[in-house]
């Protein structure tokens, strides 16, 4: 069992209605984190988080980073105390 903190920005926060939360994972895996979040927040989160064509985390228009600033992927492992930030990727203007 590990504990991670999830931070939510923009559209993610509109769905979760909280800016961050602590989650406990039985398996130290990104796939486990994705399962917990999508079960908790329903189909809109599922559509935002998971690419149905690849079953991986959705790359398109999003950015999910660990505390080292690296993008995470569905097969990655997580360490206890990790902070994952869920962002909508946009630039320009």
């Amino acid at each position, binding site marked *: 069992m590990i504990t991670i903190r999830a*931070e939510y*920005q*923009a*559209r*993610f*926060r*509109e769905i979760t209605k909280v800016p961050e939360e602590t989650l406990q994972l039985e398996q130290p895996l990104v796939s486990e984190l994705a399962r917990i979040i999508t079960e908790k927040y329903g189909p*809109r989160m599922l*559509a*935002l988080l998971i690419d149905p064509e690849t079953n991986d985390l*959705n*790359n*398109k*228009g*999003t*950015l999910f*980073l660990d505390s*080292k*600033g*690296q*993008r995470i992927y569905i097969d990655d492992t997580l360490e206890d105390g990790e902070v994952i*930030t869920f*962002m*909508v*990727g*946009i*630039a*320009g*203007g």
Partner: protein
Amino acid sequence: MEAKLLRVDLTTGEIRTEILPHSLFERWVGGSGINDWILWEHFQRHDIMCDPRGPDNIFIFGIGPVAGTGSGIGVKGRITFKSPEYGHFADSAGGGKFPYMVRFTGYDHIAVTGKAPKPVYLHICNDEVTICDASHLWGKNTSETHTLLREELGDYPSEAHTLTIGPAGENLVGMSGVVSDGWRIYARGGGGCVMGSKNLKAIVVQGNKGVKIARPQDLLRWADGFRQKIDANEAGYGFKRRGTLGAVEMYQKIGGNFWRNNQGVLFCGDEVRSDNWVKKFHKYSEVCSSDCFVACDGRYKIEGHESPQANRYVGESFRHPEYLTTASGAGALDLRDWADVAHWGKITNELGLDNQDLSCSIGFITELAQRELISPKDIEELFGRPLKLEWGNMEVIEEIVEGVAYQKNLFGQLFRDGAYYGALNFSQRKGENFMKYAIYGKGGASFTEELRAYPTWMNNMAVASRGADHLKGIGLIEKFQRKDLSKAYFGRPEAADLKTPLLKGACTHVIENQVALINSYGVCIFHWLLDVLGYAPESYYGEAYAAVTGIDKTKEERMRDGERICNLEKAFNSLIGMRREHDTICERWMYEPCPEGPWKGRVAADTFDTVLDEYYEWRGWDQQTGLQTRSKLEELGLEDVAEVLAREKALIEDGGKRSVQVSIPTAGIEKMAK
């Protein structure tokens, strides 16, 4: 596919129409590609070394074939000219309703040359084109001018849509833009100054003609599919409300913001680094054009209770600030209240000023004051009175902005062409080198994002044909760490890996070509950024273009089209003498370590040359000089351009056609890994 070009000579008053033949679209696609060709041809007949504020410069407006067709990809018009600010090629884009209304008059491109003897505006009402007196408009800001023209011209055959300059353009300020419908600025490069130098206050269009579609059923089918993909894109829902403001929070997390003239990379005000814009200020969502399935635009109206500074602007209503308006106001100048940031966006639009170059000019002089490198006497001399230069003081900033727009004081005059030339002028005047505090890239153009951690973006800033800017080669494979796209384009993941310089120059090459296509189709870049089908405008946007024009090409051929356009812009700059040494960035970005954030300690110098070499290699250009090669130009069907460059000794003769051999660089990896 055919289109009409309207040519107007303001010196003689001659107005004529030319048909742009199908072959031109086969070669230059449309929009910015055809603008570039009109510019190139113009300067085959006029001295390319001319004063860009003089009558020999040309001001071109163009719109691509897909715009206004109902495709739903948004609309972007493009202006193209020789920059009075940087002295080289320049273009700038803007959305809204003006661009497609140009198409509805029956014209796709407008080219204005010469200089009117007195202020005029150009009125295009379907086939009727008139040069009208604008003396009653001279001195008005862009919103006032738009409103007056609308009242004056009525609403038949359509409402009037305008492209106007503000006082900054009238006063020949280099960093002045042009503004459509009073609130959407084509900011970069000094288009407002070019219009002002021609005594052209505005272009006004009213039209009700249709747009010809080669295969309308194909386009309808394509548009319906695109709409469904946009609607199913959950990330897009956040973008609809925030527009590019969604980048503020994200950049705060990844260390990509720009603070106090880039002395920092994180915004410091709680208010401006939060999502409070959406919660407190955003009042109305709007569609910028009628041909957009996203609708990321919005309007604010300040009621006075939203924030401490809001009571200064009770009742003020304008377009919401985009990310770079925020980056320049909240970042470069450290405004910490959203109401001030919104007001900053409004006044720069109304006066017609580019907030990137302007904020870095103000930031430069404010940093000198912060460091006590200038005295109160210096400040009084610059501004004509004692002024307390301090970060985040909107009253002082507003006074400085007006001083620049109206050329009221020495600061405005020294910095009229932005931070680089302003810093040069000021250093020469003081007899002391202050250039290390000026933020700029190619051509002296400024940009308000932290870039040292991002080699592709840094490369964009050094090579962009219009001067430092992100919208020519926006390096999103790198910034969003898209290994899937890196593998798709290069067969390997390194373009998405921030710890290596590998494939970063290659990435600029590919995305510059793609962006050239998007700009030539005449559509909005943000639909692309939402990425409903992967960053591949050469395939799915290309299908919409084919349905509109009847021009069917493979995606490889479309990428060649984009590459051809990039090479024409490069050739323009080569003709005026730009070489490898001009593909550079400022001292702060190059040598000062990034001061904070996740990429603290990074400097561009560790990888800059490696990435630039790789960029030239992928471009097929000469690494030593930065010049184009005959083989590359011939490969792109640009033999005529090669001949011009050869005559001016601006071409590398490399013995004819060759196959492009690209290798992966290795230098600089060790430094970045640290």
